[in-house]
């Protein structure tokens, strides 16, 4: 890592190389064009459109009615479900992230340790990841349904409910997410674990470190890049949770499980039908995400140095 930059070449050489480097720059631009076009078409343009919508009066059924900034933003923040949905989304994100990362790491260690059942374990943890989130949600919708579920008789006898109370609905959804994503995070953790050189562990062992000491002082620090990646992925994904709640709870019971993205969808398509306010809320979410991700990256980096 201690490679020093080459000394500055004499200025004559620079002038001599000016032509080829301009051509190289041209090639560089050509190589970058496909990506640039995609980014512009699929990211920058929609983003600009959303920003424009957020400062315009834009009902779903009649389209653009001209600027009205900052009405949409005040309406979005004053919405009767705004605070509830933010609080709920954060709560859900914390629970999902802690569970997914802990389970993902635990399963990865398990799979790494055991050699005999290795393939079977790996496959069985990963199978749910092959199912789309919407399909998985539908599967659990049926499982949780007090009417159609094969578990219905048991559930009725025990008097429990999966989606009937706010907490039950939250944890039923978290269970679905853990089932669906734990395998995925296990694979990410596994890749991280396997990139740690074996001789480090050997050294720890010959120094007489216990398993727990090895885990805490060797594995975790060396796993930091992976942990950073998985945390960012998991937090971002959970903050943007939508399908699972849309299918399983529709924000119920009694509006207790409305996530922010669901609120955006509701404002846009279910009742208020106001794309302007929905876009304003989207912009707020976008800003919050950028901020949160920047903070997370900084946190992981500062510990690193």
């Amino acid at each position, binding site marked *: 890592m201690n490679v020093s930059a080459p000394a500055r070449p004499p200025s004559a050489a620079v002038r001599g190389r000016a032509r080829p480097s301009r051509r190289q720059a041209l090639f560089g631009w050509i190589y970058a064009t496909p990506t640039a076009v995609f980014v512009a078409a699929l990211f920058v343009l929609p983003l600009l459109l959303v920003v424009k919508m957020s400062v315009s009066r834009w009902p779903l059924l009649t389209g653009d009615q001209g600027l009205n900034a900052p009405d949409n933003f005040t309406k979005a923040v004053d919405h009767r479900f705004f605070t509830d949905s933010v609080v709920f989304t954060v709560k859900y994100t914390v629970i999902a992230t802690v569970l997914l990362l802990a389970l993902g790491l635990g399963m990865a260690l398990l799979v790494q340790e055991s050699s005999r059942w290795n393939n079977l374990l790996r496959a069985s943890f990963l199978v749910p990841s092959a199912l789309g989130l919407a399909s998985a949600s539908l599967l659990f919708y049926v499982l949780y349904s007090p009417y159609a579920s094969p578990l219905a008789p048991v559930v009725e006898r025990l008097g429990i409910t999966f989606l009937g109370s706010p907490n039950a609905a939250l944890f039923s959804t978290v269970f679905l997410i853990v089932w669906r994503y734990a395998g995925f995070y296990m694979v990410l953790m596994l890749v991280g674990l396997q990139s740690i050189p074996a001789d480090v562990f050997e050294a720890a062992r010959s120094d007489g470190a216990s398993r727990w000491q090895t885990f805490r002082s060797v594995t975790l620090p060396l796993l930091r890049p992976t942990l950073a990646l998985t945390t960012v*992925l998991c937090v971002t994904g959970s903050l943007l949770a939508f399908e699972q709640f849309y299918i399983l709870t529709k924000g119920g019971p009694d509006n207790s499980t409305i996530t922010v993205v669901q609120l955006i969808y509701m404002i846009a398509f279910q009742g208020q039908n106001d794309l302007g306010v929905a876009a304003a809320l989207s912009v707020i979410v976008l800003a919050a995400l950028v901020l949160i991700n920047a903070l997370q990256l900084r946190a992981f980096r500062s510990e690193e140095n």
Partner: protein
Amino acid sequence: MKRRSGGRTVLRSLAGVLAATLILSSAACGDDDQGDQGGVAEAGPTGVDDGSELTLWTRAPLEKQAKLLVEAYNAGHQNKVKLTVVPNDDYVAKVGAAAGSGGLPDLFAADIVYVPNWVNQGLFQDLSSNIDGLGFKDTINKGHLSAGTRDGKAHVLPFVLDLSMLFWNKQLFKDAGLDPEKAPANLAEYAAAAKAVQATKKPGVYGTAAGLNCGGCLVFTWFPSIWAGGGEVLSEDGTEAKLADETAQKMYGTWADLWKSGAVLPASAGETGPTWTAAFTEGKVGLMFYPATLLSSTPFDVGVAGIPGPDGGASTFVGGDGIGVSKDSKKAAQAWNFLSWMMSEEAQVEVLAKNKDVVSRSDLANNKYAAQDPRLVTINEVAGKGDTPVALNFQQAFNAPSSPWLTLVRNQVLDGDGDLQKDNSEITAVLKQ
């Protein structure tokens, strides 16, 4: 190594943000594009049948009726109608996106409670001169016609009428020792019958059911009780809710008592709409307020009556869908051909009445199919006493998954508390927006 993975994390987080933007930007629509407005008025009394292809959108609950109508029309005309059925929950989003980008189909149906708003937003073409040309104009269902009328101009015709009726399972009534030929005359008798069926303790059988987490279902099945009791649900102009009045309170009381007694299907508490009628259709519920459009697909012997109020009476919610020619249609004359045929005796009697559906013309109510089934006569009679509420913000106030109406009902019935006046004024606040 560390540098690189750090960079990759940045990329990932960017990807997350990008995903966010993509989700949100799917809400984006293009510019408003006004369609060809000229054609429909000069279309003549029956429009043009020249072999054009017409597109028609409807929502899933009315799929059966829409399919029958479209098949019958396609069999006898050169024009061909292509039907698209959209899931109920996605319909507004789909129409909204299409309306914004000028991509509406030639014809589309709309839940009658949304029609006032959609006409107001200019999604339908003016059909008043065509409708005035129909000799039987005065017999067309008033509720649907007036929902689609703005400034004296009619934009919408009734596509399929869906009435909410009291249905009871005659076999379960017999088993519970009730008279299977006699309908409960008021809400108290309704509750008593539900408890009697519940008391038979058959596995999986419940007294009654309701979509208690489905605003649209509750509007459809509970408003009639208030009307039957002489109450009102909305002010004349549709900007004020009257759901805290005495009649309404009695109704909530009956249902709260039913819920507490355990005679209501437990799944009702979380029912958001997709399966709200399923348990009755499978013969597992004694009696419930149920859509009349499902009469033909209910496989066992059922009794049918109007929805009673707390002290008797009978009423119904004249729901279902209205249909009109969209602002974007370039084939308005051909589309009118479909609409004028749809209102004809041939379509109303030989397609709708034959399928045990309600006809939208009162002069055809006593048709030969109705004569064969006294239940259809009952339905047609109650249809005359029914009502269709008109309000611009109906969807947000009542049908939306998080509507204040839903909050009110759940507070009153499931929790047995909550401030009724406050919940009611919350609905008014949304209606006034």
